[in-house]
């Protein structure tokens, strides 16, 4: 008689094999089972959250040079939108990035591929309200009844500006007492001091002449000199001192003119100089204006050249004392709050809706 001890039943083998195959098959299906549990709302909320993080906490890509400086012809080089000043300062938005982001030249697909992302063609609405601004910035479609949503509390960096009024002119003695037909007033923008200040090191609070808008108002010109003599603003020229090497002498060199100031509170800027001026001058240097010819070691001087119809006395001039182009008495655009209204952060709310 044959001893069948130790034999393995073929029933057992077949059953165990089928069981193992089924177990492996089911195990591989388990992740797929839970796909049905993820509702579309949750997906939309997650996409909205992701877009909110990208916009509020990221400076975008590329960051140097920054994407917001790219003109429309180079839009393809912009890989990702982002409004934060830097990764180290989440929720603090840079106004130049905000302006460029809400620029109407971007298409719907541009926003989708650079801020919303995802293979699914999501629809979106992104809006930003900034304290003190009458207009709510918005892009995208009108929101439907149901959508994924995130709201971020942010701050937007403000811009600095200086107003040189009669009070400052008297305080700093910016008056020429000579009887002349030409007066020159200079403003000093010291990039080294502004960008390497010992106290203001945080870029959130810095005045950055290479990136920020610089605004200078000169007012009360009708309170200086004989008003019956007409005065024209002949030119506004930017001069530069840049150390080329440690041994070379520093030299002022004209580098660029600025021809579009606002004169006498007009709502639009003039298109060219010279122009007659009676009361005030506003110069708004847009973001990046100085970056083409300056860096953090450059000293810039803005010279305003006034020409009078006749001999005029007691007019705006801070270069008269020791001959022309003396810059020792230049108005300093710096961190002194008496001279310059410092940039402040403004509250804002950023909303992202995705559906």
């Amino acid at each position, binding site marked *: 008689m044959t001893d069948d001890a130790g034999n393995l039943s*073929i*029933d057992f083998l*077949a*059953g165990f094999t*089928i*069981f193992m195959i*089924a177990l492996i098959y*089911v195990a591989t*299906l388990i992740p797929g*089972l839970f796909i*049905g*549990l*993820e*509702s579309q*709302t*949750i997906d939309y*909320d*997650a996409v909205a*959250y992701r877009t*909110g993080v990208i916009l*509020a906490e990221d400076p975008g890509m590329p960051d140097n040079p920054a994407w917001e400086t790219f003109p429309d012809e180079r839009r393809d080089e912009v890989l990702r939108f982002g409004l934060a000043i830097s990764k180290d300062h*989440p*929720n*603090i938005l840079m106004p130049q990035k905000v302006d460029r982001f809400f620029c109407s030249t971007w298409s719907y697909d541009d926003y989708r591929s650079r801020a919303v992302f995802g293979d699914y063609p999501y629809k979106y609405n992104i*809006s*930003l*309200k900034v304290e003190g601004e009458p207009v*709510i910035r*918005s892009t995208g479609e009108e929101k439907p009844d149901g959508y994924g*949503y*995130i*709201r*971020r*509390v*942010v*701050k937007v960096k403000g811009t600095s500006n200086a107003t040189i009024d009669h009070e400052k002119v008297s305080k700093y003695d910016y008056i020429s007492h000579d009887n002349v037909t030409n007066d020159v007033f200079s403003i000093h923008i010291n990039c080294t001091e502004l960008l390497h200040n010992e*106290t*203001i090191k*945080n870029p*959130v*609070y*810095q005045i950055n002449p290479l990136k920020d808008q610089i605004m200078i108002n000169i007012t009360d010109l009708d309170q200086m000199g004989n008003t019956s003599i007409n005065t024209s603003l002949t030119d506004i020229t930017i001069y530069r001192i840049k150390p080329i090497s440690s041994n070379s002498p520093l030299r002022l060199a004209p580098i660029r003119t600025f021809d579009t100031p606002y004169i006498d509170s007009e709502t639009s800027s003039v298109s060219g100089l010279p122009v007659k001026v009676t009361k005030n001058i506003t110069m708004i240097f847009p973001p990046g204006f100085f970056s083409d010819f300056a860096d953090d070691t450059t000293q810039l001087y803005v010279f305003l050249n006034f020409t009078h119809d006749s001999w005029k006395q007691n007019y705006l001039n801070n270069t008269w004392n020791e001959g022309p182009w003396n810059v020792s008495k230049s108005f300093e655009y710096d*961190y002194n*709050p008496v001279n310059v209204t*410092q*940039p*402040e*952060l403004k*509250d804002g*709310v*950023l*909303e992202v809706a995705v559906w």
Partner: protein
Amino acid sequence: MVNESGQLYTIEGIAAGMIMLVTAYLVLGATSVYTPGDTHISDMQLEQLGTDALRMMNTPVNGTSESQLREIIENDDANAFNTQFLNYVNSKTGTETDNLHYVAEVSYRNITDGGTTWSYPLADNNRPLTGGEHPVRVTEWVIVHKTLPPDAPYAPKDRAVLVEVLLWRD
């Protein structure tokens, strides 16, 4: 006589097993399992909002001033906290506003009694927690120049305190 060795007698069992597996798969795949997914997302949104609000309150508006949150804690100014915090968390870009409620308290280490943690209420918006709400907890560390506890025998100095806010929506 036919030898039974090698016969598979369990065809019924195999068939039944397959049916059970297929059934289980279909049932699992078709069942709507109610997870608290939406609640989780709302929690995340509230947490993000509250964290942002505290962070922005703890960010000075310019390079020379102190943050609002620091001044509020140093002066125990509950009204200022209430106004500012609700303004941050309830603001929307449209004309309508949100309707969130909160309770805030401050915690710190008491260095006069060996380092135990003390807390005191900072502010709330007159909506005490009843237990039925579903609040989220957000926090922010703040450096304040203050004597803590107020009756401690030392002059005001820089201290790290933790602001904790329970935030919920009705």
